[in-house]
């Protein structure tokens, strides 16, 4: 096999200039080392090596300009964590509070298990779970026979139950694959075949006229239309928060801003993890750390894959903009490799969403948006919505897909240590597959821990938070009379009341940063991008949490909103505007009323 690998490498890279070393482990894992001319080459090479059926997976330690994806232990944090002593103890430790970690936590909360979720971000859903297109794929865009394909189709079907129990926004309205000419008809046939092999329910060709009838805003007439009625749309963050809240309601403990920096293994058995905030002891570690899962695996001494960050940029438009309601895929342009292509669709909130593109990068935290990203997104979207200008984009953001070189999900018990489950490489369609992944991990957990006993008091229902603007006047009236904060509109673009923001701060997973509040209630996500409501949200967070102004964050520990004060600020309870509203919530409306009139 080594010979073959050498040939593959030599075919692609000038090895006289860039000596690249490939070693084959006993378990069939190939490790690539050396200096590559650039990251694109390094990445492509690892993909080519991974193509061989005999290769279990690839660890890519190739470097470019001194940078690589090799795991480097954070010694200082490890020492710091060990010195701090025990933070928590549990049966199951889930690393990562994305849709996968939260979904597993909620699934396992049915059992008599003590569960903690450790998340290094200051909110849940910080990685790919928040920065995706919210599509619940039908399953006709994944390679038949893969784990991805199986879990995609299964997960899609399970979403109806999730949506009913967890009460997140869910629209099962289908999607379309389109072909415009003879050349791209081929691609459409491939997805039809994949759909048939993957047993995608209801998928069929429909006439272009039927299609144009269903999508009235579309003007360009396709030649062929493949319709997948089971495709659905959600907000990835909302699904994750609903899962996490339901898990928390059922006793799961979430530790945010808590980074796992080492895994304690004794005699081949997992004993717990080291975090920057202390030790967490446990019998089973479930590695759902998104794009960092390869590093967690390395900490446990069982790395057999590298996760290579693949950035995707998404552009969001104003709700008023015309465009199709369902995802349209397949356009007369050259597809980028390894992406579902990125389409034109609408978010569950009604904003047109274009993208994403796909770019291999070396920095797992690089969420910057570059002109060429938007060039691609605009170029692909404009085929369906001609004449769209870049200035119409109201927000653009990047997400990172956690891809391995086999480009399939890795969900299995460790073959090296006991008490460790890998849930890695969960890139698209990971959101769609999430319910099936949670189920599969539930079974693996039983394999690890023995038979699990069910709790009698498990409650699968997570009630939807109040969305004031969607209520009838009568319901609004009733709500305000119970809690006057609902009558104080803080965000004018999205009509969000102070009551909803306070709710978000007080829910099972408290939202105490600007971005955490934005993702739960959409405040600062509207047209003014927080220009108007930002100062008010700052006051509300301070009042509810007791934080000082400079301690309030957007997202991340250095993301202060204001750097301090220019004058002394009064802090009597009856003093300033928003503090007065707090008085309202405590039932002293009469006094504040008088206060207003005296002004």
């Amino acid at each position, binding site marked *: 096999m080594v010979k073959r690998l050498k040939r593959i490498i030599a075919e692609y890279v000038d090895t006289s200039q860039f000596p690249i070393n490939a070693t084959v482990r006993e378990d069939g894992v190939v490790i690539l080392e050396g200096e590559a001319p650039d990251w694109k080459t390094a990445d492509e090479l690892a993909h080519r090596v991974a193509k061989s059926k005999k290769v279990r997976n690839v660890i890519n330690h190739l470097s470019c300009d001194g940078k690589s994806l090799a795991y480097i232990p954070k010694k200082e944090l490890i020492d710091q964590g060990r010195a701090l002593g025990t933070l928590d103890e549990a049966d199951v430790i889930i690393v990562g509070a994305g849709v996968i970690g939260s979904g597993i936590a909620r699934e396992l909360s049915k059992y008599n298990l003590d569960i903690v979720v450790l998340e290094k971000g200051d909110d849940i859903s910080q990685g790919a779970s928040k920065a995706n297109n919210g599509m619940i794929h039908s399953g006709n865009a994944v390679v038949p026979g893969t784990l991805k394909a199986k879990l995609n189709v299964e997960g899609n079907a399970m979403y109806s139950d999730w949506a009913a129990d967890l009460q997140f926004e869910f629209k099962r309205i289908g999607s379309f694959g389109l072909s415009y000419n003879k050349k791209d008809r081929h691609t459409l046939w491939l997805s039809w075949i994949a759909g048939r092999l993957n047993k995608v329910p209801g998928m069929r060709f429909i006439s272009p006229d039927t299609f144009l009838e269903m999508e009235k805003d579309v003007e360009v007439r396709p030649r062929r239309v493949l319709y997948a009625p089971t495709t659905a749309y959600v907000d990835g963050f909302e699904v994750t928060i609903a899962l996490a809240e339901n898990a928390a309601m059922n006793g799961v403990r979430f530790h945010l801003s808590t980074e796992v920096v080492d895994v304690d293994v004794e005699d081949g058995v997992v004993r717990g993890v080291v975090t920057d905030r202390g030790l967490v002891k446990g019998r089973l570690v479930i590695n759902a750390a998104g794009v960092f899962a390869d590093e967690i695996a390395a900490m446990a001494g069982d790395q057999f894959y590298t996760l290579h960050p693949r950035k995707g940029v998404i552009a969001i438009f104003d709700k008023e903009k015309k465009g199709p309601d369902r995802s349209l895929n397949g356009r007369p342009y050259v597809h980028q490799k390894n992406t579902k292509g990125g389409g034109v669709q609408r978010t569950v909130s009604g904003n047109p969403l274009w993208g994403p593109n796909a770019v291999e990068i070396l920095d797992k935290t690089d969420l910057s948006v570059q002109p060429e990203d*938007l060039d691609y997104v605009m170029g692909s979207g404009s085929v369906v919505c001609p004449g769209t200008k870049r200035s119409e984009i109201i927000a653009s953001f990047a997400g990172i897909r956690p891809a391995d070189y086999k480009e399939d999900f890795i969900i299995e018990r460790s073959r090296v240590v006991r008490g460790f489950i890998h849930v890695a490489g969960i890139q698209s369609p990971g959101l769609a597959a999430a319910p099936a992944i949670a189920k599969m991990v539930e079974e693996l957990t039983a394999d690890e821990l023995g038979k699990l006993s069910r709790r009698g008091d498990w409650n699968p229902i997570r009630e939807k938070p109040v969305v004031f603007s969607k209520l009838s*006047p009568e319901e609004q009236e009733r709500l*305000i009379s119970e809690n006057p904060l609902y009558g104080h509109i803080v965000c004018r673009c999205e009509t969000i009341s102070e009551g909803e923001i306070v709710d978000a701060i007080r829910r099972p997973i408290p939202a105490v940063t600007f971005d955490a509040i934005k993702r739960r209630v959409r405040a600062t996500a509207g047209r003014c991008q927080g220009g108007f409501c930002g100062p008010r949200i700052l006051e509300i967070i301070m009042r509810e949490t007791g934080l000082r*102004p400079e301690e309030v964050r957007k997202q991340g520990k250095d*993301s202060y909103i204001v750097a301090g004060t220019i004058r002394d600020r009064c802090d009597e309870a009856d003093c300033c505007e928003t503090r007065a509203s707090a008085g309202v919530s405590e039932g002293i409306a009469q006094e504040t009323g008088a206060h207003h009139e005296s002004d």
Partner: protein
Amino acid sequence: MKVIETDIAVIGAGPAGLAAALEASRLGKQVTLIERSDDLGGILQQCIHDGFGLVRFKKQLSGPQYAERFIEKLKASDVSLLLDTTVLSIENKVIRAVSPREGVLEIRPGAIVLAMGCRERTRSQVEIYGTRPSGVMTAGTVQRYINLEGYLPGRRAVILGSGDIGMIMARRMHLEGIEVLGVYELMPEVGGLARNVYQCLIDYDIPLHLSTTVREVFGKERLEGVRVVKVDKNRRPIEGTEEDIACDLLVLSVGLIPENELSRKAGVLISPVTQGPVLDESMMTSVPGIFAAGNVSIVFDLVDYVSDSAEAAARGAVRYLDGQAPSAEPLDVIAGENVASLLPTQYRVDYVGDELSFYLRVRKMESNVRVTLRQGKRVIKSKKQLVVRPAEMVTLTLSREDLTLIEPDTPLEIHIET
């Protein structure tokens, strides 16, 4: 649900709303003034700098002082005030609003004056790439943080856009000890008034860079720096001119647009010229009985004109209620040579007011021009103007006598003639 019947409902108690409410009340109508916050005066309360009121009061007042003059009068009037009350919708001229104390309100007025002001353009409306850290704010938000809340928004600031608020905040930040590294302007000329370049930038040696823009921001959590780049005459970046500047605050002063959220809900037509509602000579929108005042109608340069336009809207609303509203087919008023935006965009020949002011903004600076209102080949009114600049509004006021020259058939045109 409480129902309130009133002659005229004014939405927004900033300079426009205050002036409209007072004028309508003076003319004997029962007025309900609805304000979202618990304070009167709107944005004026955070505009603590001086320079307001020269036209109206022959004085250089600060924003709060200008507001105070109206607030005092309002307190002495019989205008009913609904503070802390947010309008959610306007349907068939019925307003639905909420407040913490009153719950859901239904206000049924005979006429409505929209006076919600304008909003700032944001990062998403200018082409800036890179990350999304904290520390990128509009000039108005920075102004609010400093002047109303007493916060320090950052320590090292770069300003993008040379609008008036941007320059005024450059001075304000400098005086509060924030290091202001420079003002960057995409266009080859300054966006705000010349006097603000002089008294806000030159006074404090704050550099102004024209034909230069912020292309990219850095920083994963808080802003760590920006990349500025010079642009050519087509506003495209010139390669090789990039410069990275370390800063923790990027202040955007990149323009204002009329607040249209409620106008849209009310079903009024939006003009592509003003980006506010289509308005006739009485400041009436395309929905009979709904009027617009102040920066909802067009973004004014001076608050004095905001007050004037609001009084005109109030008079229009009163005439509407009294059954004296003009009913002729409206003539279009067309933005001609070097006219970027104008108010009103429609005129009805049976208008009965004493005089009528046209407000316009130009696209480019020109000297020794004539501002001319034409109907076909006929000149209705023309005046000489030494210089016109995009930052400054041009007014053309027609007397009753001038107005009688307008015929009921042909569209009107306004041109800046050289």
